[in-house]
């Protein structure tokens, strides 16, 4: 069995976009990491996904597998975990989760995806919560995203 590496941070605050874009970032970062550590082969990769980003795991995995073909990432076992979303009002201190956020997101603006679906910009970039919703308690837009916005690689087994 190879070495285990923890908390290889991939992105913070929605730096990447679509599943393919995210998979591309993951592959590039892991290959850099592998090169830096002198790794020959990845065996297992645990990827944590922020709930806000609403990443389609199947699409992400398909993209990841295609992009990693012919590299030391090929044939690695991919495990997914999810980080729950939590928003906080900096004005009154109220906190709320994704379920409540979905009810209060303002839908006047959106991003058109390839299939023609309109998605809230929040899912592409969680920091924009302040522009897309108001505190359900006091109405302030001074909102922080406490968790659920990142894509990160939690653990890697490699040799």
């Amino acid at each position, binding site marked *: 069995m190879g070495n285990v590496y923890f*908390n*290889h*941070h*991939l*992105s*913070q*605050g*929605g*730096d*990447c*976009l*679509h599943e*393919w*874009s995210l998979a*591309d*970032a993951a592959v*590039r*970062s892991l290959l*850099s*990491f592998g090169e*830096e550590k002198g790794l020959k082969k990845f065996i297992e990769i645990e990827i944590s996904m922020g709930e806000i980003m609403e990443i389609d795991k199947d699409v992400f995995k398909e993209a990841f597998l295609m992009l990693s073909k012919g590299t030391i990432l090929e044939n690695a076992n991919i495990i997914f975990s999810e980080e729950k979303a939590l928003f906080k009002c900096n004005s009154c201190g109220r906190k709320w989760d994704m379920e409540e956020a979905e009810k209060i997101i*303002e839908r*006047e*603006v*959106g*991003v*058109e*995806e*390839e299939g023609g679906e*309109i*998605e809230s*910009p929040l899912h*592409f*970039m969680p*920091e*924009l919560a*302040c*522009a*897309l919703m108001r505190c359900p308690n006091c109405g302030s*837009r*001074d909102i*922080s995203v406490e968790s659920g916005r990142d894509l990160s690689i939690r653990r890697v087994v490699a040799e």
Partner: protein
Amino acid sequence: MIGRDVILRERFLSKNIGKLVLIGSGKGGVGKSTISIFLSLFMAEKGNKTGLLDLDVHSSSIASVFNMSRIRAGKYGFEPLRRGNLEVMSLGFLLGDRPVPLRGEGESSVVSWLMSTTNWGDLDYLLVDLPPGTGDEVLSAIRMSSWMRRRNIAVTTPSKISVDAVRKYVKLLKDENVEIDALVVNMSRLGDLKLFGDMELTGNTIELPFDPGVEEFFRGAREWSSLSDEFLSGIERIYEVIKQ
């Protein structure tokens, strides 16, 4: 451990951008966006594949000039507005005229994200309209592009308040080992340059006169003929500096 900067650098490096042009200033309202827009239009018309990225996340003004009904997310990122040789991206395309009360960390994240996830085509030049001041967004943009071929344009007006602010901006860049390639004095009148006194600048100082045709252009004419020869000549001089 690999931080966000490394990941974004890799993503940004994967794009084929010939030269990055940072257009910044010490304060708002000096005409950065106006100059960025005219430069990008001018450079595109000269046959250069030109990108224009609006990083003024709090008060994006470029989006109001380039109409775009809805932004589209493709397989490899957000698709910029494409018109001939020109590609444009702005947070304003995404959020319209909504207020964006981002705090420091959020600002940096938005800037890094916009720079790295826009699906630019192959570009000769990418012009970046920076937000005013010397905050997180400006530092993020400087860091993200430090390994690229780039030109740095500082913009001011002849006002003492603006000149004092641009001194700080130039000093910040110098402290980060970034040289200013040109100082543009916007809405200038003959003789205004004496206001700058002993300001140490490595680069060219280019005066752009106040031109009522600029507003006429934005309000609908969209014809170069509405601009004065002096204004266009100033834009061309900035372009010459960028080309070098």
